[in-house]
């Protein structure tokens, strides 16, 4: 649901209308709520002069124009002031920064600029110089003044929103042609502004889809709004506190992972060290170096950067040091579609390294869930001395939802003990394992008597010395595998939601959680039976996974890829799971999923 708001002279109704038409053409159901000021033309910049237009559109039946818009386009401070209260928490605000002059702020009754004073911290704010970019874009249009040019900024805004929601643009271009045909320079100006807005959206990588589905009923407690990337950041900070290990982040900017780096860079009072490296290889290398030194080493990226970290992760596997590797997945292959979500890096993180190189994989399923997933990834990494992949995606990263703030004292203790100086006469064995976890000692530099060397060559069991012994190699390969496989005993069982005793199971992972849940509700509402389960651990699987999948006649696996988890499940459990796969760079619609489930249930 979007609300356009601006000064009466800003052309908001026209903008809203056009967006509505585009949306109708696109095939969405929709409802609109125009909202003009009482005066025909109130004083420019004043609160009463604000004009708004709300469009609610969705992929399912819509009954109302909606109560709380999720996106507010505010052309000036007054428009922001008037409309902000309605905006859903965690919603998106796009403001025209050029209109935030002292004078306009005053007119709107702001003492300080809301853009700077932190009062918008609950929202995603995109500060865009709409006016000046419009003027700049129209520089070469003959016959219009820069004042006139500025008027086209609503078309810039429309272009930007059209890009954001992937609206078809031919209608609007035709409309401009027709409507302003008599004044070709205006038609030209509006067309250019419209396209410049569209292009800006595409170029700046500043926009991405937002998360839509929030849980239906909320448990009692204290809440806040949180996005996936913020929850992930908080989770990492929490892991640092809970483990007592200083956090070291090695990162190289990349959409949609950059703001984890940016947010952690603001957490220096937590003792967090952020290192913006020269590339992803160095980023992961530095994190591993810090881990060798006893830090909680973390490295964050998206698919095109994760692929460059594989070599380092392979080293971490054989060094058996903790390392958290966060992959905020986006659409690929290669550069792909940087702002769009996808779930197609699973097999890469599982297998993308030379030789047998097992790594645990944890996946977040909701924006707020990124918090727990981060702590869990850290727990496993620390306890088992292993790199761990943590999967999020662009949808979770930028989406947000209300979050029941956890009680800090109830969070798990994930602290560990470093190896200590040996008693006289004892020899230190860097690859001697804990009998239960198979983890080797974490012996950090600075500890007298534990001086030792580790490296990427195969190591002799226990001593860690270089060894080319054939049987030793086989043993080490199996020990590394067994250590990771053994984590299954240390994670919760797979939970199944099966209220009616269904014979069809929908098994998902990652950000499809919301859509699968909503789809199941629909299917059940139609009188059918369906069970759902969601995997938060992809390697190893929870210990009851085989039991669960084998206990259903039919298993449907919706994934925003061509069936990656499906392959793993089929191979491991030999069940004939079928996939529902759409790789469109956007989340599933509950309706389409419901159709797919229904078809399978009825089959």
């Amino acid at each position: 649901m979007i609300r356009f708001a601006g000064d009466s002279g800003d052309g908001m109704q026209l903008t809203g209308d056009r967006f509505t038409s585009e949306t109708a053409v696109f095939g969405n159901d929709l409802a609109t709520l125009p909202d003009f000021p009482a005066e025909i033309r109130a004083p420019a910049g004043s609160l009463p002069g604000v004009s708004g237009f709300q469009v609610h559109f969705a992929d399912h039946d819509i009954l109302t124009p909606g109560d709380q818009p999720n996106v507010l386009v505010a052309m000036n401070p007054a428009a922001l002031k008037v409309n902000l209260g309605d905006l859903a928490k965690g919603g998106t605000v796009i403001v025209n920064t050029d209109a935030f002059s002292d004078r306009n702020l005053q007119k709107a009754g702001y003492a300080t600029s809301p853009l700077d004073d932190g009062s918008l911290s609950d929202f995603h704010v995109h500060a865009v110089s709409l006016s000046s970019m419009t003027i700049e874009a129209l520089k070469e249009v003959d016959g219009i003044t820069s004042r006139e040019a500025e008027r086209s900024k609503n078309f810039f805004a429309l272009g930007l929103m059209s890009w954001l929601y992937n609206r078809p643009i031919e209608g609007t271009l035709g409309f401009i042609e027709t409507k302003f045909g008599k004044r070709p320079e205006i038609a030209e100006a509006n067309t250019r502004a419209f396209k410049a807005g569209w292009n800006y959206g595409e170029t700046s990588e500043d926009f991405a889809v937002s998360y839509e589905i929030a849980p239906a009923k909320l448990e009692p407690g204290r809440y806040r709004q949180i996005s996936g990337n913020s929850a992930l950041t908080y989770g990492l900070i929490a892991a640092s506190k809970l483990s007592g290990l200083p956090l070291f982040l090695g990162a190289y900017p990349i959409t949609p992972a950059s703001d984890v780096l940016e947010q952690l860079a603001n957490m220096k009072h937590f003792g967090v060290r952020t290192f913006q490296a020269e590339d992803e290889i160095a980023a992961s290398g530095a994190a591993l170096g810090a881990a060798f030194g006893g830090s909680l080493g973390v490295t964050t990226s998206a698919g095109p950067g994760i692929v460059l970290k594989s070599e380092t992760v392979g080293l971490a596997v054989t060094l058996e040091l903790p390392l958290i590797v966060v992959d905020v997945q986006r659409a690929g292959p290669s550069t792909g579609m940087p702002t769009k979500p996808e779930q197609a890096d699973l097999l890469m993180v599982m297998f993308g390294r030379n030789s047998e190189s097992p790594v645990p994989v944890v996946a977040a399923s909701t924006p707020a869930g990124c918090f727990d997933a981060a702590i869990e990834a850290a727990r496993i990494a620390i306890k088992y001395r292993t790199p761990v992949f943590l999967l999020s995606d662009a949808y979770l990263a930028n989406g947000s939802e209300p979050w029941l703030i956890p009680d800090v004292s109830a969070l798990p203790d994930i602290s560990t003990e470093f190896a200590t100086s040996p008693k006289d006469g004892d020899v230190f064995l860097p690859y001697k394992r804990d009998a239960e976890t198979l983890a080797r000692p974490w012996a950090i530099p600075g500890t007298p008597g534990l001086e030792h060397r580790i490296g990427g060559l195969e190591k002799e069991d226990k001593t860690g010395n270089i060894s080319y012994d054939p049987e030793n190699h086989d043993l080490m390969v199996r020990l590394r595998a067994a250590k990771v496989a053994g984590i299954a005993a240390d994670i919760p069982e797979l939970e199944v939601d099966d209220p009616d005793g269904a014979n069809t199971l929908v098994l998902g992972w990652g950000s499809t959680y919301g859509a699968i849940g909503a789809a199941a509700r629909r299917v059940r509402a139609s009188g059918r039976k369906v069970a759902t389960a969601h995997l938060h651990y992809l390697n190893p699987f929870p210990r009851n996974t085989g039991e669960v999948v084998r206990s259903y006649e039919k298993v449907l696996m919706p994934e925003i890829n061509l069936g990656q988890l499906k392959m793993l499940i089929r191979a491991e459990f030999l069940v004939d799971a079928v996939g529902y796969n759409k790789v469109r760079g956007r989340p599933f619609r509950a309706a389409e999923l419901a159709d797919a489930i229904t078809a399978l249930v009825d089959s």
Partner: protein
Amino acid sequence: MSEGGNGNGLVQLTAKDFKSDQEVRWCPGCGDYAILNVLQGFMPELGLTRERIVFVSGIGCAARLPYYMQTYGMHSIHGRAPAIATGLAVSRPDLSVWVVTGDGDALSIGGNHLIHSLRRNVNLKILLFNNKIYGLTKGQYSPTSELGKVTKSTPMGSLDYPFNPLSIAIGAEASFVARAIDTDKKGLTEVLGAAARHRGSAFVEILQNCNIYNDGAFDFVREEKGNRIYLESGAPIRFGAEGEKGVVQDVDGSARVVDLGEGGEDGLLVHDAGQREPSLAFALSRITFETDGAVPLGVFRSVERPVYDDLMSEQLETARERSGEGDLETLLHSGDTWTVES
């Protein structure tokens, strides 16, 4: 005494304390042995206990060195040692972190990490064993091999103009740059001492003979001592068996070797490693056996500049002063919150 450590009391160690129990496995006659010996002999000068010292290496013959040092060590992956060491040094300012690398490891696959660690001035001591060849992989040419070099991978001669390790380091804003010879115990020890005393990145090129795949590559200066130009800050640059040669600067800023005439030392370039402007050090780096028949050794450049690790620690302190030690509870409840009643 190195400033890398906190010097906790007197430590009386000897070279022997720095020998690990691993058998040294280079080819008999390899220059790496000489370097290892000098290094082990030098270590006590750091005045640090062994657990405070870490050697990080990439892959190559040179990169095996950490196994032989009774300190902490990591034999990592090809070319990445500077990156890994950066994370370690930055997060553990109490350690003395050394990087051991080869000409392939440092300048071929690892070139980018090297130049970035130099510009950042991370507190690393980087020792590049330059044998102008890929030793471990059996003799392909390296980025320091001379043009036209015939090797296994270049049967008709190599086509790439070589890097000058010192020039590239200086171009990359290195704050400390030096050169020594594997078998020159005194010169190498001095350079190691200067590197250790320098806070920040110290880049040391060590000319090393690979007697199997590139034997004699440095004989002109390893064997012929008259071709060694020892640089000494504050002194005119003079060398030769009888001190009969010197270095002057041309009008265009380049440096070159001359025979000392009547004038003696007049007009000779006076070395100053501490000069902020890197142009002099750069000009000296261009004096090579090929251009001038002689090679400068010692410290080319050593200037103080804020150290990445220190700056980062300072920011952490400042942030704590400003906002107090981070509190998780407060963080989670920051921003707008609301309560859902039961």
